[in-house]
């Protein structure tokens, strides 16, 4: 928008000044400049988007193998009760994330957020390794004990709905 406005401004200015050919050159210069800039921005944004968007999947989707391989994604659900195990030395933690239908095993090395707890919502970011274990690089739990991340809630609802449908079918 800014380009547009200034292009007209520049063009008007040039049009008044003597020498029509020069005016046209100047306008052309502004337009080329603006278009090149615009193209550069679009390329920049698309490139950045392509490499840094992370998709979210539920444990059911992970088990059904609907997830990308060799690329980071997020998985979320509840931390299964009694599933949290600590390594005897170091900071590695093993736990399972469930949407009540399926579970995914997660390994994480580092400090867990304050609100990480069994039977509470969690979102983990990382990659699935060849054994089907989720190697998390980041574990997120939100800042309010009553708050369940919307993605997690949706995953739980989905699993619940599927189970209800299955019961009905039987």
């Amino acid at each position: 928008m800014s380009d547009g406005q200034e292009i007209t401004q520049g063009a008007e200015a040039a049009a008044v000044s003597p020498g029509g050919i020069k005016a046209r050159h100047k306008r052309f210069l502004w337009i080329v400049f603006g278009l090149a800039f615009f193209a550069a921005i679009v390329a920049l944004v698309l490139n950045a988007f392509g490499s840094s968007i992370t998709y979210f999947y539920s444990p059911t989707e992970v088990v059904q193998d609907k997830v990308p391989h060799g690329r980071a994604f997020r998985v979320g659900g509840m931390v299964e009760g009694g599933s949290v195990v600590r390594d005897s030395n170091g900071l590695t933690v093993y736990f399972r994330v469930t949407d009540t239908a399926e579970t995914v095993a997660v390994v994480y090395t580092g400090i867990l957020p304050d609100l990480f707890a069994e039977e509470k919502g969690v979102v983990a970011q990382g990659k699935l390794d060849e054994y089907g274990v989720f190697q998390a690089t980041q574990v997120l739990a939100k800042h309010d004990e009553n708050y369940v991340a919307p993605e997690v809630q949706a995953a739980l609802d989905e699993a619940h709905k599927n189970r209800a449908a299955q019961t009905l079918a039987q």
Partner: protein
Amino acid sequence: MIPEIGQFALVLAALLMIVQGTLPLVGASKGISAWMALSRRTAQGAFFFLSLALGCLIYSFIVNDFSVLNVANNSNTKLPVIYRIAASWGSHEGSILMWVFMLGMWSCAVSIFSKHLPEEMTARVLGVMGLVTTGLLFFMLLTSNPFDRIFPVPVEGRDLNPLLQDPGMILHPPMLYMGYVGFSVAFAFAIAALLGGRLDATWARWSRPWTTLAWCFLTVGILIGSWWAYYELGWGGWWFWDPVENASLMPWLVGTALIHSLAVTEKRGTFKVWTVLLAICTFSLSLLGTFLVRSGVLTSVHAFAVDPQRGMFILAFLALVIGGSLALFAFRAPKVGTAGTFKFVSRESALLANNVLLTVACGTVLLGTLYPLFLDALKLGKISVGPPYFEAVFVPLMAPLVFLMGIGAVARWKEATLPDLWARLRWAAVISLVAAVALPFILGRTSPTSVALLALGFAMAFWIITSALAGFFDRVKHVEGSFGEKLKRQPRSFWGMFTAHIGVAVFIIGVTAVKGFEAERDVRMMPGDSVSVGGYSFRFEGLEERRGPNYNATRGTFDLSKDGKSIRKLYPEKRIYFAHGMPMTEAAIDSGIFGDRYVSLGEPINDGQQSWSVRVYHKPFVTWIWGGCILMTLGGLLAITDRRYRVSARRDAAAPVLAPLEAVKLEKA
């Protein structure tokens, strides 16, 4: 009783604002001076009632009147009084009241410091602000009343979210809101200019101090928020590209473009239409930011569905304000016309490019923030856009901006020549290049990416400093007298720009040093263990239990030492708040000019040996990040106190006295 008085005061304020939003505007277009004169009285009256309402809410919090829903949800008998006061603006309802109160304060300030503005201008500015305030007051009264009662009355309140129980909560929201709301003045001036058809250099001079002041507040607000996140969240980061942070960054970016564009409009009379558009956008983004954050849409698009009435009101209000002002802009702007010409190489061009880059940067942030919401709303999948996106887009946009900053400050208005620019800036360019090449090696970095990053950062910082100095020597070259006199002769607005630009350099040095040299370790420690990071050693000495007013804490003692010499003890805490049972990490930081040493407790590891997971950091120059922001703010304040804003009115009857110096004093009081 007190909450009812507050409620009643809000209704009265709303009625006054309806008057302020209508009669003065009509009066200005029909030339009825009595109607125009009303605007000052209503602005001051409404401010009185809004202060009363805010006072009533704060009082209800202090006495813990749990019959008020808002208090019951956000306070607690064990909550310290200072945080009860801060809790007044901790909730959605309270923060909207705070917002409207500040809008009232700015209107009142305009009504006081606009004595020398033409009568219609004041009437229109206050009228537009009245319309905005009316909308927000009705939003509050109809959908988010802070004084709603609850029955039966609970015995105990739910307590303020422990994360918010921090000095940051006392300062951060008010400062941020002062900034957001302050842009409403710039917005009102822009709309008034469109309505009245008076859009000239004088107009720019009127709205400039107000805009700069709002920008200063916003800068301070963001800075406090960043610092708060740094020490409170326990992650040691200072900016997370979180949607909530982005919501405050967007108006700041466009606001920064606006203060530069206003400079061109005032000095050269060009960019007028663009300036008006920026003023509209800045305030629209402030509104959007507040609502995105406060309505909960950012955490979940479904928040709209939870309270459809609130969501619809917000959407309608945004559509009305943004759509209405843009429609008016489209309708009137062409009539305002453009004036002034400039060449491709000139200060105008540099500032134009500055504006384009800042606006585009804001656009990319907006895209990254809203794109996941759109996808989710359209059920196209759930994604998150992380920091890599913002960093990948931001750095390439900011690098040319910084380059132009040096040129813009020394280039001549209207027409500059490249040889001339080169003559003025060659030393700056040489020094920056040398610094960029030499410093990463002197400081001992060898991996190619980190060398490139450091080189870019140092080049930018040195370029800003050296080109600002070049600009300074250029200015004083022809001034007679001693060096001290030369310094004194420069106007405050020049010193404002100089300080703010140096602030950007300081900020960049901070960011570069933290990115390039920070060291972080997550370790498992038991009492007696030591860990070293960045040349410092942290020895875990032991743990003790401590009781706070509304929490229990486990406090660790760490001995910080360097080369075997003990520097000081650090006491990080892990707190459990009673009301929520919520754990909170309180990091302990040894802060200094050249870097911070930071330790926070993770969690106990039940291995029978009192082991804890512990996070230690060394963050070189991290305080420079906020120091740079403080310099930028100081620069803004210096610029506001420039003589010409005070003197011009006395000299020229048509021009205003905005007495910005007094305005600053008022805001501080």
